[in-house]
């Protein structure tokens, strides 16, 4: 019980200490304090995980009620937490990767004047993210949901003196607000229907079939809109690539490994609801697929090392939603975990490169870095192999599981998913070869100055590389033998009572499908290697890009489209209101009152002209008037 309090309280304490006193503390204390609070949470979560393994009832978790938060007539919400098999998995990912990234940040941010602020925000983010996954009701989830949105905003705009970064932060916040509105509507509907927000009350009621289909669809669609915003799905994905304005550890932690997977967590948590809403499931499936393909295509033409990774993240999130749409909840969680490993690794690797290149992010300015940065090179290679599905690395297993689920569900979805996965290989290897192979192309910094990063940065890289290699062990496919395989499926099975156990397809079919993916992988590596290493090609300058490439390089002009459809009409309307109503009507009214007063007082002023005869005349006239009045009436 108290372990939940500690898991949550330690990052919060770190946030408070660093936030309040951090300015006067030496940097080493701030950094290590931030790191150790999260690490301690991780260790405690490991202990809880061990307890849960031996728990008598596998679907039960730990509960911890802090206090009654709201109690208004029949509206009763507790400030309470629950730690079951699903949330312990999320907690381990968040605190585990979180502590590695804290460690990394000590070196990455050591020259920054906002060092203490950075760690305070990071700790606060961890706290909010934990609240999101540990909350025992939808309102707690909503608190965490908003909290991580706030931290994301603060950290994207961390270098707020650059106006562009501030804009990116605002964009992320506003796009997330749209999604949050959907989530909030979903919560209202849930409360309207069930008079409660507790998972333990609402979810069984959803599953028992007493709710109308229309209501279930409405609730699930609303919740999915929330997931769309947080997890960057079409049409709300455009904030995530811009969010790369933040420091690289932030991109790794928030915009790749943890926060953006909150949408996936939400859907898995409400598995009963989504399982019973086939319409929503189809929407999730196709939205995920479209996002995955579109982001992968855009990723092909990006030249900013972090932008490539950002679109790759959007694309992988799309794949997770494809899995959710197919009803393969375990596959989605599996991919969530492995993706957290290798995407955090890739982002931290890119951060190491950027650090070495003095904040140069354009891969056209790099090249040949492998000899100078051996640790970064090898770990980045492992990350690239893992995400592209090199056999027996983590991404290979998790992606195959999604592809198999898609194959099982719908052949068209399968083909499109395979295309998306193949494009992943194309843009990842393109980026990898252009960055680390070939010749050095930057003329501003000499090649000799490029250096390997300090141990605080390379240690997380190595740990994450090991995890990226071994992550597949979480859920090995069943053809590798029943003793070692499907660990995650068994682990999550009590939490996911509705999800159908996958129709066992014959191992021959599975081998064929896996073989196809491996074949495609080999072709992709040969193609990119031939193009970018043997021929030493460099992505062409923006002006020389052919027209189809231009559409991709400009991200399908989606930002421009949104600008035209939403921003411009709003600006037009507000300028209209400004010119017509505000300045003419309201301004005219107020100016009219003063003009009228001025005119009246101008009339009066003429009487008071200071001329004594004038006054006397009036005096006499008035006297005559009074006397005459007396005389005649």
């Amino acid at each position, binding site marked *: 019980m108290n372990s939940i309090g500690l898991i949550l309280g330690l990052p919060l304490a770190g946030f408070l200490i660093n936030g309040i006193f951090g300015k006067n503390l030496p940097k080493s204390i701030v950094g290590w304090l931030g790191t150790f609070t999260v690490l301690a949470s991780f260790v405690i979560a490991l202990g809880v995980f061990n307890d849960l393994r031996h728990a008598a009832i596998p679907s039960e978790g730990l509960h911890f009620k802090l206090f009654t938060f709201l109690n208004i007539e029949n509206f009763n919400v507790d400030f309470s937490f629950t730690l079951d098999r699903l949330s312990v998995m999320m907690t381990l990912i968040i605190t585990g990767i979180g502590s590695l990234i804290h460690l990394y940040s000590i070196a990455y941010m050591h020259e920054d004047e906002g060092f203490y602020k950075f760690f305070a925000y990071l700790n606060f983010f961890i706290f909010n993210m934990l609240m999101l996954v540990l909350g025992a009701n939808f309102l707690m989830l909503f608190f965490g949901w908003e909290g991580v949105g706030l931290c994301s905003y603060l950290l994207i705009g961390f270098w707020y003196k650059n106006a562009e970064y501030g804009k990116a932060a605002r964009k992320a916040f506003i796009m997330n607000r749209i999604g949050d509105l959907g989530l909030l509507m979903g919560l209202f509907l849930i409360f309207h229907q069930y008079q409660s927000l507790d998972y333990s009350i609402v979810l069984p009621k959803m599953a028992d079939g007493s709710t109308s289909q229309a209501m279930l669809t409405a609730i699930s669609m609303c919740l999915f809109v929330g997931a769309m915003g947080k997890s960057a799905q079409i049409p709300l994905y455009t904030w995530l690539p811009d969010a790369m304005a933040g420091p690289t550890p932030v991109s790794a932690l928030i915009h790749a490994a943890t926060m953006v997977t909150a949408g996936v967590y939400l859907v898995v948590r409400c598995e009963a609801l989504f399982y019973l809403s086939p319409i929503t499931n189809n929407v999730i499936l196709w939205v995920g697929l479209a996002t995955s393909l579109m982001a992968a295509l855009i990723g092909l033409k990006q030249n900013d090392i972090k932008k490539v990774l950002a679109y790759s993240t959007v694309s992988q999130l799309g794949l997770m939603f494809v899995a959710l749409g197919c009803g393969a909840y375990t596959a989605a969680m599996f991919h969530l975990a492995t993706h957290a490993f290798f995407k955090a690794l890739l982002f931290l690797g890119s951060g190491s490169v950027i650090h070495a290149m003095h904040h140069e992010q354009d891969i056209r300015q790099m090249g040949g870095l492998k000899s100078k940065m051996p640790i970064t090179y090898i770990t980045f290679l492992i990350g690239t192999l893992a995400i592209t599905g090199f056999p027996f690395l983590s991404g290979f297993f998790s992606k195959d599981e999604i592809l198999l689920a898609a194959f099982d569900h719908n052949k068209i979805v399968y083909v499109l998913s395979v295309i998306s996965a193949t494009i992943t290989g194309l843009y990842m290897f393109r980026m990898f070869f252009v960055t680390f192979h070939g010749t050095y192309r930057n003329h501003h910094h000499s090649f000799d100055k490029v250096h390997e990063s300090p141990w605080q940065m390379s240690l997380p890289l190595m740990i994450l590389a090991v995890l990226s290699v071994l992550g597949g062990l979480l859920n090995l496919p069943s053809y590798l033998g029943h003793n070692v395989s499907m660990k995650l499926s068994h682990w999550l099975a009590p939490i996911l009572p509705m999800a159908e156990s996958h129709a066992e397809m014959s191992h021959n079919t599975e081998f064929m499908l896996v073989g196809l993916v491996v074949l495609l992988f080999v072709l992709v590596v040969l193609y990119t290697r031939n193009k970018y290493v043997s021929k030493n090609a460099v992505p062409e300058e923006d002006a020389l890009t052919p027209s189809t490439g231009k559409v991709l390089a400009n991200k399908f002009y989606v930002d421009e489209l949104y600008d035209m459809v939403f921003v411009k009409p709003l600006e037009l309307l507000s300028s209209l209101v400004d010119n017509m109503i505000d300045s003419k009507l309201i301004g005219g009214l107020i100016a009219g009152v003063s003009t009228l007063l001025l005119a009246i007082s101008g009339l009066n002023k003429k009487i*008071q002209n*200071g001329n004594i*005869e004038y006054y006397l005349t009036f005096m006499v006239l008035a006297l005559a008037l009074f006397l005459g009045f007396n005389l005649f009436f």
Partner: protein
Amino acid sequence: MLNIFQSLEISHYIYLSCVLFCIGLFGVLFRRNAIILLMCIELMLNAVNLLFAAFSEYMGDKDANGQMFVFFIMVVAAAEAAVGLAILVMVYRNTRKTDVSFLDSLKD
């Protein structure tokens, strides 16, 4: 004995007094020279004095209170003329003018 005052109707005195008063009044209103202004004020006061004396006689005022009042008014008028002329001298020294229409600085 023939009282010279009795031989005239009271209305004559009233008409005369009114004419004098109006001359004084219009003088005050329409002339600009401060000295003429003061003279016109004296004229108005004297029109009133005349009326006091006439009424005192015709109304059988045994103690001649009305005529006594005339002397008071004369004293006050003399004092007023003295103060007024003193102010006028100061104004003239400052502005080199005796035209009251230029003395309009009160309006601002």
